[in-house]
């Protein structure tokens, strides 16, 4: 389980590092949006598992394909949620910042980022769930460790009990991680009575 969690952590972390700045950039800059949006929109509907053959060719068997797949699984959700968050900011709030002649950095730091945070956070939460699903799939196909691999080996040796334990472990871990997300959301979004 630790190996799987580590892979999700790295893949999800990479996805966040790439998708959040890119999402803001695409939402705030028309040129980058026109240039990059069709590209990401094209790759978005491709299921993460369809990347598996390429991931094995690029990274071999082991951590590489699993981390890559978890990153792909979370990337698009976080990217588009960030963009949506920025697009949904109230025009009046931006006008207030313009009226006060707030600098671009102050407007971003104190208006754009916090206003888009609920959508961004929702994307992170969803992305984490998708990463967790992707890592198990990847480990079943191209790994010699992790929960997915454990379930696969158990299936080959007809150990239904281990398969079920593996499934429960996935379920409980995802539930626990989501609980942590919920707590983080409640802490950072106290202003909107975050309960989801």
């Amino acid at each position, binding site marked *: 389980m630790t190996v799987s969690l580590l892979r999700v952590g790295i893949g999800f972390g990479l996805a966040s590092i790439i998708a959040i700045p890119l999402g803001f950039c695409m939402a705030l800059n028309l040129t980058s949006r026109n240039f990059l949006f069709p590209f990401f929109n094209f790759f978005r509907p491709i299921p993460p598992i369809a990347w598996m053959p390429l991931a094995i060719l690029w990274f071999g068997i082991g951590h590489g394909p699993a981390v890559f797949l978890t990153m792909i699984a979370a990337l698009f959700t976080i990217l588009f949620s960030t963009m949506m968050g920025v697009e949904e900011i109230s025009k009046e709030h931006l006008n207030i910042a313009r*009226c*006060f002649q707030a600098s671009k950095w102050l407007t971003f730091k104190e208006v754009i980022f916090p206003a888009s945070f609920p959508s961004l956070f929702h994307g992170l939460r969803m992305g984490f769930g998708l990463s967790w699903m992707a890592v198990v799939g990847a480990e079943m196909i191209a790994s010699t460790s992790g929960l997915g691999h454990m379930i696969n080996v158990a299936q080959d040796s007809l150990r239904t009990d281990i398969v079920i334990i593996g499934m429960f472990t996935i379920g409980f871990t995802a539930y626990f991680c989501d609980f942590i997300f919920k707590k983080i959301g409640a802490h950072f979004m106290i202003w909107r009575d975050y309960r989801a």
Partner: protein
Amino acid sequence: MLSLKNVSFSYDQKVILKNINLEIKSGEIISLLGPSGSGKSTLLNLISGLATPSSGEIFHNDIQVLAPSHSRVIIFQDHQLFPWKTAIENIEFALKAQNKITNTAINFLAMVKMQDFAHLYPHQLSGGMKQRVGIARAIAADPDILLLDEPFASLDPFIRHEIAGEIMSLVKELKKTVILVTHNIEEALFVGEKVCLFSTRPATILEEMKIEIKKTKHLIDIKKDPRYFEYESYIYKYFSSLKDLKREESL
């Protein structure tokens, strides 16, 4: 001093405002009164610099208005406080934008009697409290002109009178120029030293009335002055004649 010269504004090939001419002296308080949808709020946006006139020019202290400025701050009907900031943080934003020290924020809240609620979020405040914080935030930006876009319309009638009175006393004390947009005759007469009557679309200012009612702290008290009813009946007649004119035009 604010000066509007032949200001017109069109949107989507529809003329919203046509040839608006207006002179507002420093420290003057005027009300723009007109039917809903006549373009009064659009005029405030033009004055604030948030929108640009299709033709004509606006000058503030002899400098043409081409962009928003903290010297002309708009206060919207629904306060538009940042919901992710507490009352005091909302004020601090206005101060930070002007590169001013933020520890004076509490003083602005005290001006509107909100110092005890400084650390509450907007969703924890009542409508009247939010509007007070909105006014304090606008004042914190130290504007010359306060543009009030129906700021009391969303408040219930019981506190509307009280808040309107308090806020008008405050802006007079601070010697701010105020432009209030409203479709409420009582409010327009209470606030304005001058009331500008709008026509229907394409809107223009058809008449400027100097209001000589003794101003009191309470909105309800202006009705004690007999001239209030003269003004009110004149304004009603004026808007009825506009409707009749429009009906005749459509026939």
